[in-house]
């Protein structure tokens, strides 16, 4: 993905939370691009900073959390420099959002149709009648049966899967350039999850919308994403094409994560496990953040922070793997 086509460009993003006991960094030096029509999967376990990264892009932070350094570019806008009122014009218009729980993303007291019309009229200069037509088309597009009647329904009259379809319709109705989907299928059943993933993928490919798909589920990533970014303790551990990262993981953390997934383990075999747990934000180890749990850790990993991900070094932020790659190239 060359930078010219990138819809979203994030460079060296650092998010800080000042507290009485010192400054916490839930996101620390993360860089990535998402191209038009591309799905970037962001995976990590709880506390990895994946949702924080989504919030940083849409500027939904409560003080004192703030972007300390780095750049976020969406097309021609510098989101990190914008004031709240400017960001309000971007959200919904340029960036659509789909959250985990569809019930809390919809106003329970307003009919679905009115919520769609309101969103469309806020973001696009269209007449009420045209907005209504567009709302109907949007509901039909996300596969809601009898859409014309359903416009008059309230959110509680929909099932979980149908509600998430409505939320997707809301996110896409202003034709944004980027959609941030934060665990969009975690609250749904397996069979409905497959429907929602397929829908999100199809709509975004048709419209050339860039998608940032945040999830903890490697299976969802493997099916939906074009590229994957693996986060650990707020830092990027690995980023690359989905087949490479999931099929041939390079970073020891990705390797451990994949090996501990029951679906990647042959029947009857013991699950591989990574010892320990993700460090808390106030106790991130010095050096490479993963070194206490890493089976390959060396003396250098304890001292120096993990190297940046550089195209020449491969796709993993790891001293050991980077050196292996260099040795391969020399020989």
């Amino acid at each position, binding site marked *: 993905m060359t930078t010219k086509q990138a819809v979203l460009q994030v460079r060296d993003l650092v998010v800080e939370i000042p507290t009485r006991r010192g400054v916490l960094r839930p996101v620390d030096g993360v860089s990535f691009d998402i191209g038009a029509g591309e799905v970037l999967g962001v995976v990590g376990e709880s506390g990895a900073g994946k949702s924080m990264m989504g919030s940083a892009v849409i500027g939904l932070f409560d003080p004192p959390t703030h972007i300390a350094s780095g750049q976020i570019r969406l097309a021609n806008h510098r989101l990190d420099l914008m004031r709240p009122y400017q960001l309000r014009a971007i959200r919904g218009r340029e960036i659509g959002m789909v959250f985990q729980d569809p019930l809390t993303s919809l106003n329970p007291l307003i009919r679905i149709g009115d919520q769609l019309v309101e969103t469309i009229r806020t973001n696009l200069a269209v007449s009420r009648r045209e907005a209504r037509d567009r709302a109907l088309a949007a509901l039909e597009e996300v596969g809601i049966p009898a859409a014309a009647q359903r416009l008059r329904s309230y959110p509680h009259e929909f099932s979980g899967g149908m509600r998430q379809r409505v939320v997707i319709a809301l996110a896409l109705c202003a034709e944004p350039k980027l959609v941030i989907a934060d665990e969009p299928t975690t609250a749904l059943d397996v069979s409905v999850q497959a429907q929602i993933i397929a829908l999100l993928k199809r709509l975004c490919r048709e419209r050339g919308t860039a998608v940032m798909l945040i999830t903890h589920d490697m299976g969802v990533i493997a099916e939906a994403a074009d590229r994957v970014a693996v986060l650990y303790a707020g830092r990027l551990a690995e980023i690359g094409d989905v087949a490479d990262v*999931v099929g041939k993981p390079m970073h020891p953390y990705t390797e451990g994560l994949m090996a501990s997934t029951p679906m990647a383990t042959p029947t009857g075999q013991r699950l591989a496990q990574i010892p320990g747990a993700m460090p808390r934000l106030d106790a991130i180890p010095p050096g490479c953040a993963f070194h206490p749990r890493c089976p390959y850790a060396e003396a250098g990993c304890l001292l120096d922070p993990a190297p940046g991900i550089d195209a020449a070094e491969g796709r993993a932020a790891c001293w050991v793997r980077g050196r292996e790659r260099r040795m391969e190239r020399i020989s």
Partner: protein
Amino acid sequence: MSQTMVQPAETPTEEPDASAPLVVVDDLVRRFDVSRPWLNRLFDGSPRAILTAVDDVSFSIPDRGVYALVGESGSGKSTIGKIAVGLLKPSGGSVQIGGVDLFRERSTRKRRRARADIQMVFQDPYASLNPRWRVGDIVAEPARALERPIEGGPGALLEQVGLSARDTEKFPHEFSGGQRQRICVARALASKPKFIVCDEPTSALDVSVQAQVLNLMRDLQRDLGLTYLFISHDLSVVRYMADTIGVLYLGGLVEEAPRDTLFSKPRHPYTRMLLDAAPRIDAFGREVPPPQGEIPDPINPPTGCVFHPRCPLANDRCRAEKPQMLTDEAGRVACHAVEDGRG
């Protein structure tokens, strides 16, 4: 229903022989009255609403076996789990543990002893530990309630699940989600039960932590000779844990088969749909048509086979007639299409 597998209820023996199943669930039914208050019904003329959460489910678990129930939300899997530990009463049918009917046994002594052999591990390790108790007291509570001694004290139990004996003095908030679930497992082991119901024990945990807890639970099952009823919505977890798997849909058992058979030759169309829909790690950009439809309203379930509105093989018979459970060497399945050889 599969009467062949069911031990006659009238012959409770003091010491059941080893070949008999430890847990027998027979024609279990549980209905919930979800009607509006009677005054509202009187004014609106709305009828009573009865939700059948568990509809005629029968299965048995051999001693030291792991039986898994899989299903989506509303399939009744947790309700069965709650009935199996005695937290809910069945509306019909029975649950026998070691030959003792949990709900109809007259002898208090026998009923107590059967109950003492049962423990449960819940889904949410944050909600199932009392935040004001020390971990040592939490872990020792079941043993204290049943007046059974703990060998080596609560510290030994914690060491058995991979924690430290010194952790007895700590409070639950000092532990991470995975460690809390280990505490829950230690508590379940304290009274030396034979049978543990695990209701989605790892769905609140991260993948790497889930692997630790699943490995631990499987090791304990083998080392201590435990019997598990393992409830989960996640087929990959179930495949890792269970010997035999029962698939539930809208309160009814649709298929039961040994693990390998179920995954290699699923027979019921719903099982096939579930297996196809489950995300796969090796399926990059897989383009399969996703399953159609959603789980119907359990208060007004479809006629005939409850799966027929979503079933690609449904015909008029499926719409009219409820399929019976067929038992053969490959397992059990309730489907007209399989019966007629259309599957």
